[in-house]
């Protein structure tokens, strides 16, 4: 049975989290993400989930990591300033490999910035915000329906890869209200973390073939140690050079080597496109509109929309850009994603279209730039 409703992006994230099996939320109020917490505060008690409002964002992510260690799919939602505060513990979740989902509804920064308007300014922070080397997964929805499905995917990827996953949603999508329809019979696959094999010795951070060790939840009978210090396979602190090296490299490769499994893109009219627009989040909708307008004027334009922002699929981007006349990357920041495109595309000019005043990039701005570079 399906029911059509008008739903906001933030609310869709809350519904997606519930569909993914989330049972624990800890958060701190911050515009423009607060509706996620408000929805969960209403919905969780009805299904036996736990909602707690913490004293700050650091406490919020600490609590969700603790709840995840105890076996609960856990998440939080925040925006720029809160996302900045969470960085140290996002690193903790990465090094301890505890599945967590952080929804970051992006607003212009730095600092308090512009709380009520939109931005895509946290793209690089999501990748490199915490200190040290690790990989991470980040997704960016372009619609309310996608906010729902990508929140489910965020949980699936967190569970599958034992990693923090960031849902990077611009305020535009977070506060957008549009048609929402979920068909219960077509529920997406729900992935749960791999449990230890009964009867086999449990090595908490074993370098398994897939580089993702099974997760024993606290209370399940496997008593072991979790630490944010560099650690060996048994979980205890080690500063032995080969141990540290193997640990850091596994954290990196378990995600970076799986780009084919993790990364998803949508292509619109790319087959014969001479102009390729690469855009994500709400900006992709302007790009699609711009491409349509350009086509009507006889300019062959197409759109590549990365749904997965991180990890970056070098080979895929390099290949799809081959043979085009020009690549344009519009984004609501000073050019954060375009840096990655420029890193892997050598033979085609890659142009950056930026906007940082809190408003969306319009289709007209994109078409104007296309005509300028042609």
């Amino acid at each position, binding site marked *: 049975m399906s029911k059509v409703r008008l739903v906001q992006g933030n609310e869709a994230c809350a519904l997606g989290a519930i569909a993914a099996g989330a*049972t*624990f939320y*800890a958060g701190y109020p911050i515009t423009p993400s607060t509706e996620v917490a408000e929805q969960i505060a209403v919905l969780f*008690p*009805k299904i*036996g989930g*736990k909602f*707690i409002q*913490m*004293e*700050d964002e*650091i*406490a*919020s*992510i*600490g*609590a*969700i*990591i*603790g*709840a*995840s*260690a*105890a*076996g*609960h799919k*856990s998440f939080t939602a925040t925006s720029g300033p809160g996302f900045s505060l969470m960085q*140290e*513990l996002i690193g*903790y979740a990465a090094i301890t490999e505890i599945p967590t989902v952080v929804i970051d509804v992006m607003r212009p920064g730095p600092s308090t910035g512009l709380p009520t308007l939109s931005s895509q300014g946290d793209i690089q922070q999501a990748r490199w915000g915490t200190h040290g080397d690790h990989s991470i997964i980040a997704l960016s929805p372009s619609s309310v329906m996608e906010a729902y499905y990508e929140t489910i995917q965020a949980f699936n990827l967190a569970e599958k890869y034992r990693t923090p996953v960031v849902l990077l949603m611009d305020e535009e999508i977070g506060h957008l209200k549009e048609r929402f329809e979920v068909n219960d019979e077509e529920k997406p696959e729900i992935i749960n973390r791999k449990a230890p094999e009964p009867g086999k010795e449990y090595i908490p951070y074993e370098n398994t073939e897939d580089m993702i060790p099974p997760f024993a939840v*606290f*209370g*399940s*009978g496997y*008593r*072991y*140690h*979790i*630490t*944010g*210090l560099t650690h060996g396979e048994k979980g*205890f*602190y080690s500063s032995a050079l080969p141990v540290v090296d193997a640990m850091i490299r596994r954290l990196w490769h378990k995600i970076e080597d799986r780009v084919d499994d993790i990364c998803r893109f949508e292509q619109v009219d790319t087959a014969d496109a001479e102009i390729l627009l690469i855009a994500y989040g709400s900006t992709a909708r302007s790009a699609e509109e711009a491409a349509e307008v350009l086509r009507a004027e006889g300019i062959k334009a197409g759109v590549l929309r990365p749904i997965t922002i991180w990890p970056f699929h070098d080979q895929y981007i390099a290949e799809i850009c081959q043979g085009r006349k020009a690549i344009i990357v519009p984004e609501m920041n000073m050019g954060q994603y375009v840096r990655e495109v420029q890193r892997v595309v050598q033979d085609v000019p890659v142009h950056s279209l930026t906007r940082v005043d809190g408003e969306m990039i319009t289709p007209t701005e994109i078409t104007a730039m296309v005509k300028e570079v042609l």
Partner: protein
Amino acid sequence: MNALYENYFRKNLPHIWCSGCGNGIVMSAFARAMEQLGYDKNKTTAVSGIGCSSRITGYLDLNTLHTAHGRALPFATGVKMSEPEMNVFIFMGDGDCAAIGGNHFIHACRRNMDMTAIVINNHIYGMTGGQFSPLTPFGKKATTAPYGSVDPAFDLCELAKGAGANFVARGNVYHAKQLTDLIVAGARHKGFSLIEVMATCPVSYGRHNKMPKPIELMNHIKENTVSLARAAKMTPEELEGKVVNGILHQVDGKEYCQEYQNLLDRIQGGGK
């Protein structure tokens, strides 16, 4: 034959602590308390922050979570709130708990979740080599207070009481038997329990404050501690510079997880 309390250790020695450090005494007192409490090890989680004292979790045969500096309480809150049947203990140091973790501490006291926090107060940041903390007494020396600290110190027990903790006690590493009793009483008391433990750090605290030998710090604790009963008979002048030991505060307030369960029952029963 091993003593029963040793069942709570992982026996992954050697430990990292210096000679004369009080942390081992606290760990032993905790293990003896566990023996009395009889908790299932699989249903007990020990959470710690960062610092010398927080390394305790690595040596305990429990579910152990060694977190980030100052953040043990939020992690513990997540474990307890999601799994209220879990017995949760938190180990923190004085800088860890009262400085970087101070905000989490007062809010954990306020929520009154049924967990037991053991704060090992050696008056110094030991692991970074002897800087003053918010629990370093006024005038004492540290590497960052070479001429004596001008920072006033918190009374952690008063802070906890004021913030809403339901059980507040102070013990020390000299009166080790009493420390075990306090941990047992704190764990059995429903609600947030604080046990502040006056501890010794001859290397990073004693050395800067004319008590470089472990025995000197032990004697200092012994000579400056008064029991609650004795303190009641002393004048404020006599109490000056003394540390009062025992269960300082004990009330039965609303426990957070129970209140949340009541809310769940009400909403799932069709209430509002």
